């Protein structure tokens, strides 16, 4: 038993300056389009802003979940690139800022914020103990506070370990992750109920939190996978990552693509079969007009295509294929959120124009910038982690 197991050689290399430039360019381009679109059509922009908010929450919170689940499950294979998820989780710091324009436009997005409408509707007045602006705001603050708290606590220990190599920090993070799990489950559920399900305040589905969680996990995994493969190819990560690691990432993407299909099917099947009007309204909206094409497209984009593309064993190990499908899945998550949110804005058919362009640009810009800022300050490898060598030795 050697006392110093981390004999791995890691020399920190800074990301090329062009990454930062691309990030800033996308950020500015996105912001310009967004500011302009807010002037042209406030409501439509607010709805798009909500998609952006949910998308970035997915990336940030999903990545934090991935970090926590690694500690909790005692996984070693993902340790060499856990920092990628930690950096992505930093997106959570930006998310409250994205929420501000949504909050300013609450009345144009959420039907239930109009007290006169609620008073005239017995169902909505029954829900007003939960769906009211004050409680809504309190919940939003609580969610953000909890997420940021756990983000700082967990990543602080991880960062500290780079220098001290103290194994107790791992133990501490395992405990933190265990406490985080139930909090994560409840907050992500109620966040999805508040921000997506309540767009149609009459509709309800008990599985909805699981649906959003699955999509978020996929988005975080996909963003992580893309970055890991890119960095590894360019030599920014530690030497020793093999196709076994790639395979594991691909297998998780594949597994949760299937799990998403299972959850989405369960929700659709039960609502379709029972055919109760208070529940079918959700799918009726999405089968109405040109939305039906978006709905059919969702099945292909979110399930069938990534399923086929990641099914075989070699496809999960091929770097090119993995990069393509992680970008694909990221797009699919955005598409899914569009499908969940936009029918509340435009009932007659889907809308797609330049106004829908600014928000994804901003999302990508934010992710790149957050990542490049974090990677400047911190190591890309958790060099003090006791599981690092085991992670590098990992073979299928």
């Amino acid at each position, binding site marked *: 038993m050697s006392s110093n197991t981390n004999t791995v050689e890691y020399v920190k290399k800074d990301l090329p300056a062009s990454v930062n430039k691309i990030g800033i360019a996308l950020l500015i381009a996105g912001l310009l389009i967004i500011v302009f679109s807010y002037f042209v059509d406030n409501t439509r922009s607010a709805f798009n802003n909500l998609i952006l908010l949910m998308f970035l929450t997915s990336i940030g919170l999903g990545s934090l979940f991935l970090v926590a689940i690694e500690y909790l499950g005692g996984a070693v294979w993902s340790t060499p690139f856990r920092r990628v998820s930690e950096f992505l989780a930093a997106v959570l710091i930006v998310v409250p800022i994205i929420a501000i324009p949504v909050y300013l436009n609450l009345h144009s997005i959420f039907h239930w914020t109009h007290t006169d409408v609620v008073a005239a509707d017995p169902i909505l007045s029954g829900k007003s103990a939960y769906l009211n602006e004050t409680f809504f705001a309190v919940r939003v603050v609580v969610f953000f506070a909890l997420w940021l708290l756990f983000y700082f606590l967990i990543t602080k220990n991880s960062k500290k370990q780079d220098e001290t190599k103290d194994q107790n920090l791992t133990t501490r993070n395992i405990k933190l992750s265990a406490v985080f799990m139930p909090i994560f489950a409840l907050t992500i559920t109620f966040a999805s109920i508040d921000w997506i399900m309540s767009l149609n305040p009459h509709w309800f589905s*008990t599985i909805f939190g699981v649906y959003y969680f699955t999509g978020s996990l996929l988005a975080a995994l996909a963003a992580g996978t893309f970055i890991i493969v890119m960095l590894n190819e360019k030599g920014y990560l530690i030497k020793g990552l093999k196709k076994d690691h790639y395979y594991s990432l691909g297998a998780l993407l594949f597994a949760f693509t299937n799990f998403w299909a299972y959850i989405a099917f*369960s929700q659709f099947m039960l609502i379709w079969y029972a055919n109760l009007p208070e529940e079918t309204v959700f799918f009726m909206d999405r089968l109405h007009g040109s939305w039906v094409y978006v709905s059919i497209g969702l099945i292909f984009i979110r399930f069938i295509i990534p399923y086929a593309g990641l099914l075989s064993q070699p496809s999960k190990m091929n770097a090119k294929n993995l990069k393509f499908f992680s970008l694909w899945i990221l797009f699919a998550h955005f598409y899914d959120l569009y499908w969940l949110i936009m029918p509340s804005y435009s009932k007659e058919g889907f809308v797609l124009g330049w106004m829908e362009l600014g928000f994804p640009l901003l999302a990508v810009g934010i992710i790149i910038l957050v990542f490049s800022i974090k990677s400047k300050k911190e190591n890309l490898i958790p060099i003090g982690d006791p*599981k690092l060598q085991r992670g590098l030795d990992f073979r299928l």
Partner: protein
Amino acid sequence: MTTTDYRHEPSVVEGRPSLRELDEIIAKPLESKPDKKYFLALAVTLSMLGIGVIGLAFSFYYGTGLWGNNNPVGWGFPIVNFVFWVGIGHAGTLISAILFLFRQKWRNGIARFAEGMTIFAVMTAMIFPAIHVGRPWLAGYLFPYPNQHSLWVNFTSPLLWDVFAVSTYFTVSFIFWYVGLIPDFATLRDKTFSKIKKVIYSVFSLGWRGSNRHWQHYEMVYLILAGFATPLVLSVHTIVSFDFAVSILPGWHTTIFPPYFVAGAVFSGFAMVQNVLIFIRKIFNYEHIITLDTLEKMNKIILLTGSIVGYAYAMEFFTAWYSGVQPEQFTFVNRAFGPYAWAYWIMASCNVFFPQFFWIKKIRRSIPFMFVLAVLVNVGMWFERFVITVTSLSRDYLPSSWAYYTPTLTDFAILIGSFGFFFTWVLLFTKSLPVVSIAEIKAVAEGSQPSHKDH
């Protein structure tokens, strides 16, 4: 704070036994004659089975009027027991297939037994729909085959999907179990001195010689079967949940049912595996193979799945209130405070409250505590199915048809019989086949893994 060393992977098998020692200790129960205690245990389970047989005989003679099922509550004990036993089986497939795909090495010590348990649990479960149809000798018509009576099945009924789901599940689980047994049959064949046993083991080992090529094929088949079995873990209990959820009955119709049923099934299955393994590791001296670490990991999964179940209860309650639909709201208030409140609170405390003790490491590693908690989990999970089935039916949309369901002695006799049936199979299994996979446990013994350092 005690320091754990994360730099080295803890071995699944403790005490560095040699491979030969592993052969010997796992094969020992098969090579030695059963002792008095074994026969005593068998006598108990066979008596329980006998009680069930008597209950069934009376039911066939006098008819199902002997059961407590009444007009609104047409689904009484038979469906409750069916769902309970199908659920018990789920841990086996989860351990053998999903944990295999997740490369959890600690599963190797417990997979064989859990898989065997899956098969026995599904066999036990299948008794109930068969008797519940009233004329089990006509149950063959549940399969869609063209016949002279022009009887055809209703493909839109989830009860029919159950027939396909459960029979597929049984078939795949059985093949999976058998494929895993092949190398062990060969080991036993080579060890035994009895001529009859040698013939039997030779037949079942399919000419296994342990060559490199055999192993390559074996590993490939095992991986593919694990891939097949994984969606089955989800599909079977999903279909079982559809039995309830596709209807429009409040308390049954809710979209979270599929994943919630699957989590509940894994929850109860793990509790059952843990319960029986505690005895097996003690009686057969497998404490170094099925270690305390392994049991602790199982307890963590019980805590996780129990919390998922708790999450589902909470979501159901919240959404019932949030939906603003009066019958939904009534159903859930009725569950918690109505005539079946006693059953509801047994369920909630056993499934959600008590498993939270597993947050404490000392309790996770204490055999008596974990045993009691796992028993409570199974009690709770049986009551969960009771609460779902009975409370929703006994008070449906039409108050004039409300009725209280009381199970009869015959119902209890059949329930006891199902436990007898299940545990008789378990007992026979422990004495006729290796309850731990010899081949798989060798793969996780210390020193068996090749080092990759030189690659």
